[in-house]
């Protein structure tokens, strides 16, 4: 925590080394978050970059991260994702089948596990913004419940219940689609 605060102070002084370190540390986490929520890798990449650029702007405007970089980044990620959905609405689900190149390993992996990515993405549309956010943090980024609770500023019990209901809704939605 102390390290993160020091890193943040250096970042606020536009210390390139510190900023590069932040990018290195959190890029994969943010990308995984978006890759969980976004239909294709390119969108996830674009939105991940967008989050880091917003972080810079926040530093310039001195409007940002009060004490936790991770909390700020995923708060921004949630907003960026929401804005993306608002812009593209439901188009991405239709597009996914066109955009995923045949023979891509991840898709093969998913198919081999009979994971219907399209169905799951579509099923997630019915979830609330908070539910999608918690699922992306918990399963996309792979954070334990305790840390998710810290980021979304809720109790662990509330996050657990939120997660359980999201999974139930998603499962039923996927069953309906199939």
């Amino acid at each position, binding site marked *: 925590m102390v390290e993160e605060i020091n890193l943040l102070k250096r970042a606020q002084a*536009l210390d*390139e080394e510190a*900023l*590069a370190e932040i*990018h*290195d540390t959190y*890029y*994969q986490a943010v*990308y*995984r*978050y978006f*890759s*969980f929520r976004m239909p294709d*890798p390119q969108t*996830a*990449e674009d939105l*991940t*970059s967008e989050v*880091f*650029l917003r972080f*810079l702007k926040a530093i*310039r405007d001195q409007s940002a991260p009060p004490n936790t970089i991770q909390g700020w980044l995923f708060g921004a990620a949630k907003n960026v994702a929401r804005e993306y959905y608002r812009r593209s609405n439901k188009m991405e689900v239709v597009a996914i089948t066109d955009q995923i190149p045949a023979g891509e390993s*991840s898709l093969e*992996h*998913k198919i081999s*596990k009979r*994971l219907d*990515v399209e169905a*799951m993405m579509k099923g997630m549309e019915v979830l609330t913004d908070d539910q999608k956010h918690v*699922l*992306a943090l918990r*399963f*996309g*980024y*792979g954070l*334990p*419940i305790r840390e998710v609770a810290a980021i979304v500023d809720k109790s662990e019990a509330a996050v*657990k*219940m939120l*997660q*359980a*209901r999201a*999974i*139930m809704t*998603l*499962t039923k939605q*996927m*069953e309906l689609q199939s």
Partner: protein
Amino acid sequence: MNRPLEEALVEALDLLEQGTPIVKILARYPDLADELRPFLMTARELDQLATPASTDAQEASKREFLHSVASMKVKPQKSAVTWLREAFVFSLALLLILFFSGAVMAVSSGTAVPGDALYGTKRFIEQTRLNYSAGSEAAAALIKELHQERLDEVRTLLSRGRSETVTFSGEVEILSPERWLVEGIPVEITSSTILPDEIETGFMVQIKGKTVAGAVLAEQVDVIAERSPEPDPNNPQIQPTPDILPTIEPLVIPERPDLILPDNASQTDPTEPLPQPTVTLEDDSTHVDDSAGAGENDSQDSQESEDSQDTSQDDGRGGSVNSSNHESDDSQDDGQSEDDSKSEDDSQSEDDGQSEDESQSEDNGHNENEREKTPEPEEIDGS
């Protein structure tokens, strides 16, 4: 929703997070196993949904990110340069504010009256204006303006019923034992008021006193000039600086003794009361002739007052009489004032009536008396 199912799912997801295999978890909830299974499967699938970023994508993002940092770093430098400009603009603004607040104070002090917080500022500004205009023609106008300002202040104080110490000057319009009117301002005279020896309506006086119940309770009255008409523009010159007043008074006073002196002279020479003034005048003139600056004295005296004009005329006459043959002297005097020339004619005729020898012999007799008087005109010169 099914409450027991939800609670079971929460627990089951906890176990899944801890790494417990789904089979073992479902074994814990035999009644709900069928319902829990799809949820736990979904959870496991969700765990596989996210993919790692390619290193290319990460590097590209980092480059873009650091490039943005660099471009942001330029801006602070620019703002550091503009900081100086901003500081300059700010200090300029501050100066302007100070200047205008000073100007506002100067303007607002314009209406201040004695006793007001800004009155000192007002007088200071007036004095500064006076100092700057000293000697110029504008100075006379300014002095007149300030003279009027003092009067207005007193009137304001009276109308507001405020009691303040004031000093002002003006012409005595009405004289009565206890109450005078000076420039329309009622002045109360009490037993403790320091009064001049002589006072008449029409005299220019300076009043020091307090504004009390519609009138100025005079503490001291000084005569500035015995008649107001011409001296008016000159007298105010004296008023702003009271220090000059005592030195002005001798200007007036010696002239009265001058008037009296001929009487004294007539007492010393009871036989010829009429010629004697001319004799003393001749003596004056002899003295004046001796003194190099006689002409200057004349011009000054003629301005001071009628009395002083008399003396100057006397001087002029004396000059002409003494050197009755030296018409050049006369012409000089004539050039100075026409009034002088008139009186000179009178005196000359009187002088003509007298023998020059007599006048000369009396001159010698009077010269001693005159020497006693002459220092007084010198004092005038000095002043």
